């Protein structure tokens, strides 16, 4: 068999033996000390910034650490705390369960505790796309009834035998924060979608109503909505009709959140190219089908970062119920600060609150990032 022979003119362009492997480019894989050094001291400017930051850390961190850990009091009394001079984590320990359950009657606290566990399990299940099925909705309805029944001792006004009624006035702590934010946002979500669609509707009345809702609510601070819901609405109620204060606050919160969510969704809707609508039309899909199968799946997906942004903002806004005397998590801490046996540990209380809110918000943020990635395989870079 004749091997093909390269013309002489080409021979010296073909390697006759294997060349040694090249090292990866230095920019891709420097040894880590070098990488670290380059990152922080690569140029005079970065070196200066690093030094300044280190100086600030050296200046602030040791006093903080000695306050927060070395001189801290973990268990004991206020007197022992003042003696030690450091952080008084014993204060948080003393008030921890108060911050979880608020004013809920002490001997009945197994009820909110059970509710918290059920809720945590449901949330954990709901975050998994594996469980995103119709059954999950039914499960939520059932669980909500159970949770409400356990907390209040009655469902839809029907008392549950064996459970002492507990007015929502006495609900508090983490539970109220969770109720307000989770149900507020869950309700605001569909309403927000409807408002966003309504605002882009061709029907003038629908459009006018949506625009009015969105613009009016966004133009008013949440706190004034809470005031209206809490104090003005009861004045217009017929004698003998009373909507619970917590529910009024919850409604105000939903109305507020929906307006903000609507604008987020509208941004998503406007980002969908016209061709998508035209394509749907050409397939003979009606408006509802177009929205349900073509437009909203894309619009909702691309607005996930903005949605989470709004979620986190609204979650933190729930602390405003402090003003109307609802004992959410933050209010319980403010209340604990007034205990005359434990005066003066505000820093510890606020750090604890910051820690809890940070964990919650950071979890939301991480989850949304994962969700975004899972839902957009085509866009992962």
């Amino acid at each position: 068999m004749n091997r093909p022979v390269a013309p002489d003119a080409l021979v010296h362009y073909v390697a006759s033996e294997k060349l040694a492997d090249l090292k990866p480019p230095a920019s891709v894989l420097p040894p880590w000390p070098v990488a670290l050094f380059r990152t922080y001291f690569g140029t005079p400017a970065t070196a200066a910034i690093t030094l300044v930051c280190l100086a600030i850390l050296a200046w602030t961190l040791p006093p903080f650490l000695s306050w927060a850990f070395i001189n801290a009091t973990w268990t004991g009394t206020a007197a022992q705390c003042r003696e030690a001079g450091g952080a008084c984590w014993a204060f948080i320990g003393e008030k921890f369960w108060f911050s979880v359950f608020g004013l809920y009657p002490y001997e009945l606290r197994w009820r909110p505790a059970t509710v918290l566990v059920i809720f945590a399990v449901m949330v954990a299940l709901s975050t998994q796309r594996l469980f995103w099925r119709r059954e999950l909705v039914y499960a939520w309805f059932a669980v909500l009834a159970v949770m409400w029944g356990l907390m209040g001792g009655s469902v839809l006004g029907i008392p549950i035998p064996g459970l002492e009624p507990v007015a929502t006035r006495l609900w508090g702590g983490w539970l109220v924060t969770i109720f307000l934010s989770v149900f507020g946002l869950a309700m605001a979500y569909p309403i927000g979608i409807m408002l966003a669609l309504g605002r882009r509707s061709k029907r003038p009345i629908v459009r006018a109503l949506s625009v009015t809702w969105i613009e009016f609510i966004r133009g008013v601070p949440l706190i004034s909505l809470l005031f209206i819901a809490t104090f003005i609405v009861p004045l217009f109620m017929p004698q003998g009709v009373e909507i619970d204060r917590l529910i009024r606050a919850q409604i105000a919160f939903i109305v507020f959140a929906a307006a903000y969510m609507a604008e987020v969704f509208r941004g998503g809707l406007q980002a969908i190219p016209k061709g998508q609508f035209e394509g749907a039309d050409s397939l003979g899909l009606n408006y509802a089908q177009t929205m349900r199968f073509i437009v909203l799946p894309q619009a909702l997906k691309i607005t996930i970062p903005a949605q989470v942004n709004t979620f986190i903002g609204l979650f933190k806004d729930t602390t405003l119920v402090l003003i109307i005397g609802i004992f959410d998590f933050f209010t319980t801490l403010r209340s604990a600060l007034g205990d005359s046996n434990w005066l003066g540990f505000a820093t510890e209380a606020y750090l604890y609150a910051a820690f809890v809110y940070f964990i919650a918000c950071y979890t939301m943020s991480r989850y949304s990032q994962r969700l975004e990635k899972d839902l957009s395989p085509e866009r992962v870079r």
Partner: protein
Amino acid sequence: MIRNFVLAGLAAAAFVFGPTAAEAGRDLDAIKARGTIRCGVQGPSNPGFGVPNAQGVWGGFNVEVCRAIAITIFNDPSKVEFVPVTTQSRFPALTNGEVDVLSNNTTWTLTRDTGVNRFNFPAIIFYDGQAIMVSRRLNVTSARGLNGATVCVQPGTTTELNLADFFRQNNMTFRPVVIEALDELRRAYDQGRCDVFTNDFAALAAQRTLLSNPRDHVILPERISKEPLGPTIRQGDEELTNIVAWTVFALIDAEEFGITQANVDQIAGSATDPRIRRLLGVEPGMGTAIGAANDQYARTIIKAFGNYGEMFERHLGVNTPLGLERGQNNIWTKGGLLYAPPAR
């Protein structure tokens, strides 16, 4: 995907439709029909006056006043629903019937008594007033010796205006150090940025406990404003007014007559003084006259909480962290302002 997003939203609908309580009426009848009195206390809390403990149970001076009122109406201190209100929300809450009585250190003023709010202040339970705190090393015994002082004061409050008035009346000058947050203000004073710290007496005493060396600071005797605090109700219910007023008077009378939690039963059994016999219901009639549950209402209250002085000492007095002197809040026979009309 949309469906899944919508799911949780629909689920939340169930949350909104819960049980609803019956609407309160606006007078004593409504309170009696409901079986509880709704008492507005300062939320989140007010040191010494009203604070929920670690188990979520309200305690404190103002809280016991409400429980005493419940004893008068129902002969049962547990027939109170405590509704936390804030300084912003207290008057709307009282006006719209969410609470029946405010027991949250509301100052009795002309406009609150007569203006659009139309409230009633049946009795004064605590005489507060703006006070002035200085360091002991200044050797000042009277606020009139503070000419040229630097004063730590919150901006935009009546506190600031009262201070300016006081110094002007006495032909003195001062340099204000104005800081909005009370904690910051206290720190500034503690670090010596100002000579004088001014606020309402009870609040000032609470702040004093937080200074690095509370014993080095003294609250001067002058009160440069009048802040009479008392339970507040809506105008137009004379029966409730009577009940609140005579509940407070019973506490004051009990201290004046030397009736305490410990000796009330013994005194009720052996008293010959007709004033004491009427107060404790040994001679019937007084309880019925004010519309109380029974003639022994005062005896039950004193047995539950003691007289005014005992309540004061338990929550606010010198042996508590607040460390308040009785001062104006002493019985008139001991140089204070507490004076109850005769029960006869």
